[in-house]
């Protein structure tokens, strides 16, 4: 061991912070090197002299009283206990936010092949275009639905009109047929009544004749008078 290396070992040797082997080597060197022996002796003397400045009483009595610890300070204290510093917390939050923005951007990015070319739209513009397209489609659908409704109403009205006219024609036709049949029936009934009337009249005549015959027979009294009765005709 040379004297230059000893300069670094002196301090350790003086305050007993050398390993046992190093200490032995250092002491052995000092015992054989007059220069280092003097240096070491001087260091020990100076250190011992410093030791005469004894520790004194501070003559102060600091007392801390409880104060309300702000929420974030308490939170950071608790996080610190599990090894998370406020800086790490903020860094983590920012990183998470950036990742969310990045992934959202990627998810919102669209590539469309149209008319032989590729169109790429990024981020919120892609969604906006989709929304605009969607809203246009919805408006078109509503307009077509409205037109369809109007057209259907017209069809219904036309259909009702045609059916009503047809029904009226049928009813008229039926009424005509009914009137015709009624006339025929009335004619037939009239004929029947006439026939029946004629027959009744014939029968009446015959009945009167019979009755006259009967009266006459019943009024015949030999030697007595007899009255004559006749039946009133209609």
């Amino acid at each position: 061991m040379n004297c230059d290396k000893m300069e670094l070992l002196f301090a350790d040797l003086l305050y007993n912070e050398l390993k046992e082997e190093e200490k032995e080597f250092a002491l052995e060197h000092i015992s054989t090197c007059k220069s280092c022996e003097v240096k070491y002796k001087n260091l020990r003397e100076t250190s011992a002299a410093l030791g005469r400045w004894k520790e004194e009483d501070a003559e102060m009595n600091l007392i801390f009283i409880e104060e309300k610890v702000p929420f974030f300070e308490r939170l950071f204290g608790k996080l610190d206990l599990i090894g998370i510093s406020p800086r790490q917390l903020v860094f983590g939050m920012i990183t998470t936010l950036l990742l969310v923005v990045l992934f959202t951007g990627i998810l919102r990015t669209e590539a469309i092949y149209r008319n032989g070319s590729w169109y790429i739209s990024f981020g919120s513009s892609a969604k906006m275009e989709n929304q605009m397209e969607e809203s246009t489609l919805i408006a078109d659908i509503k307009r077509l639905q409205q037109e369809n409704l109007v057209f259907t109403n017209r069809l219904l009205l036309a259909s009702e009109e045609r059916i009503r006219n047809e029904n009226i024609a049928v009813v008229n036709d039926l009424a005509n047929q009914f009137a015709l049949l009624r006339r025929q029936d009335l004619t037939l009934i009239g004929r029947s009544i006439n026939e029946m009337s004629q027959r009744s009249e014939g029968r009446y005549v015959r009945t009167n004749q019979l009755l006259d015959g009967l009266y006459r027979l019943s009024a015949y009294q030999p030697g007595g008078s007899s009255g004559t009765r006749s039946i009133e005709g209609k």
Partner: protein
Amino acid sequence: MEDNQLILKFIDGDVQAFNVLVNRWQNRIYNFVFKVLGKREDAKDVTQKTFIKVYKNLRKLKDKQKFSAWIHQIAMNLCRDEIRKNKRSPTISIHEKIRTSTGEEMELKDFLSDGSTDIADELFQGEVVEIIRKGLKMIPEEQRIVIIMKEYQGLKFREISDILQEPLNTIKSRMYYGLNALRKALAELEIDKEVFQYEL
């Protein structure tokens, strides 16, 4: 109860646990700050500021086992702020005036090299402290802080390296050269062996 258990209790809302921690550390931090700044009133102010800062930021301390290094780092930064604020020179001249135990005011060099008396016999503890304080102030601040942390705070070189955020060998080197510089400063003041009784 260990420091880290007290810290966890404090984080959980127990202020009394913090007061126990303060009580345990305030003398140590005060003495550290006093040795760096050299003035008791400044040391008290900075000690108070240190614990207020600890109170506000203890929840942010990741490795609770490194509380000692952490609180020293806070105290040291506040000391540096104080030094900057007061534009105080990190070193002093041997012509700086001091007040002796008899109330007499004289230059440090004259006081320390006064051959008319046996200084070693007559120096009171306060005067010894004054001499060491002056001697420490005569060496560069970076070396002084390492010496105070090691000699008075009993921190390991590795801890000092963490606090100052300097390589381990740089710290050891500052310790070595700092002690030599201090010896030279004291030699310049001609108080070598007459002042200090070496216990070798």
